């Protein structure tokens, strides 16, 4: 082979590698749509499951997942953004900032089942929150905290120094500068982190099976009650061999939900984002 042929060959191989990613996505989603679409109708989305999910719908699981992921994000966002602001705006680079960042990265690497075990022993039993939306939501919050934290930190660090100086030079306090310059300019990065966290929180099974999820098709009335959730329901339907059709239907609903989060956010980001 001469050099030009090699060049073309390499280009082809790399193109293949790149296109492989999108093909996997298409196959995965296509497979779930084909297998799951037949299970889905209006009743499936709006009624309770019957006979352990062989029949009926998944409404309580949809609601439960929204509660759990919503609580996780509501808890993780202020802590993650607050911590990121402290690290970027209130302290010097040093041992402590390195330790905090290392801690966040390590937390990010902890397997989700470990969060589940921790939530079970610490929140459910030690703090006596019981198997509940509160326990599950907090467990998920711990899990997505590093995602929100690091994305926020990156975004806040990206705010140019000269914009902050411009604000201080006009007699702004630190709080005013953060509120009027730093947050508006980093909001889309922060929102991205929150959405990534939301998607993970909605989809993870391991953190909630010990802490929040039940099979009983009840509608939770407070955060001290347990709830059904989509990923846990999907797990049960599949592992107990109850109904593959409904399992794929549940999977499709879960995927669409996560995609809807992403879509909603990209709209918010477009509106909020500031042209530079």
């Amino acid at each position, binding site marked *: 082979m001469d050099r030009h042929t090699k060049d073309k060959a390499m280009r082809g191989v790399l193109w293949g590698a790149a296109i492989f990613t999108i093909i996997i996505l298409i196959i995965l989603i296509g497979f779930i749509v084909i297998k799951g679409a037949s299970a889905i109708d209006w009743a499936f989305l709006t009624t309770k499951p019957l006979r352990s999910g062989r029949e009926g719908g998944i409404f309580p699981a949809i609601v439960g997942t929204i509660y759990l992921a919503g609580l996780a994000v509501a808890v993780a966002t202020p802590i993650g953004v607050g911590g990121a602001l402290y690290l970027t705006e209130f302290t010097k680079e040093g041992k402590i900032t390195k330790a905090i960042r290392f801690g966040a990265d390590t937390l990010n690497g902890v397997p989700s089942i470990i969060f589940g075990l921790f939530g079970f022993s610490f929140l459910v039993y030690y703090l006596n929150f019981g198997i509940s939306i509160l326990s599950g939501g907090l467990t998920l919050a711990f899990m997505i905290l590093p995602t929100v934290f690091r994305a926020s930190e990156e975004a806040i660090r990206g705010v140019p120094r*000269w*914009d902050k*100086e*411009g*604000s*201080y030079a006009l*007699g*702004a*306090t630190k709080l005013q500068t953060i509120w009027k310059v730093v947050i508006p300019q980093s909001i889309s990065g922060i929102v991205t982190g929150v959405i990534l966290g939301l998607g993970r929180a909605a989809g993870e099974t391991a953190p909630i099976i010990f802490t929040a999820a039940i099979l009983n098709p009840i509608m939770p009335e407070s955060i001290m009650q347990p709830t059904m959730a989509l990923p846990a329901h999907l797990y049960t339907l599949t592992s107990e061999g109850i109904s593959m059709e409904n399992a794929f239907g549940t999977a499709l609903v879960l995927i669409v939900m996560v995609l809807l989060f992403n879509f909603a956010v990209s709209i918010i980001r477009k509106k909020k984002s500031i*042209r530079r």
Partner: protein
Amino acid sequence: MVRMEIKDVNLWYGTFHALKDINMKIYKNKVTAFIGPSGCGKSTLIRCLNRMNDLIDTVKVTGEITLDGKNIYDKDVDVVKLRKDIGMVFQKPNPFPISIHDNIAYGPRLHGIKDKNKLNDIVVNNLKGSALWEEVKDILDQNAMSISGGQQQRLCIARCLAVEPEVILFDEPCSALDPISTGKIEDLITQLKKDYTIVIVTHNMQQAARISDYTGYFYLGNLMEFNKTKKIFTNPDNPQTEKYITGKFG
């Protein structure tokens, strides 16, 4: 009349001694220029005058800088109020990525002005005061990033004027601008000196000669010579100043 006085000021970045025993006076309603080769400390010094260097962790300052006799480095000084009284225009035009109107209203809003009519008056007056009004009067709602660099810099001047400072610091305000925009800013500075005390850092010696009344020549953290601009540019006391000004050095 002396507006600000710099007394025995030394500054370190960590262990690097960047300003050495600086003494000079800033006169009211005059333009004082800081000149000197890159790294001589002139920008560092101007950033001491509104305590902008406080934002850098490793900086240590000794000595005194007074505004109307009061040391601005005293513990009881409100830095926020100080920066309102001593405005600053930066090297790179740095309007906020919001509308032209909101850029100018930013400062007044910080200090509690909420009334819309009042804010509008402030915006209009200061755009006129910075010779930008005719160019932007129809596009006040447009994002400030969409106007030219020279217009952005005049917008930054308008934004600075809107908080009613007494002293204005210009840190190489024209180094990113073309000659025509530079000329406009120079004219503006000459007008502003009627109402404000002005300090300007510049790389451009002709600019210092054109617009300033007093000039300080800095080299390696030392103030080599401080004098009336006319004297510095015609008959400097220090032979090194002459070398720099005539382009033989620097």
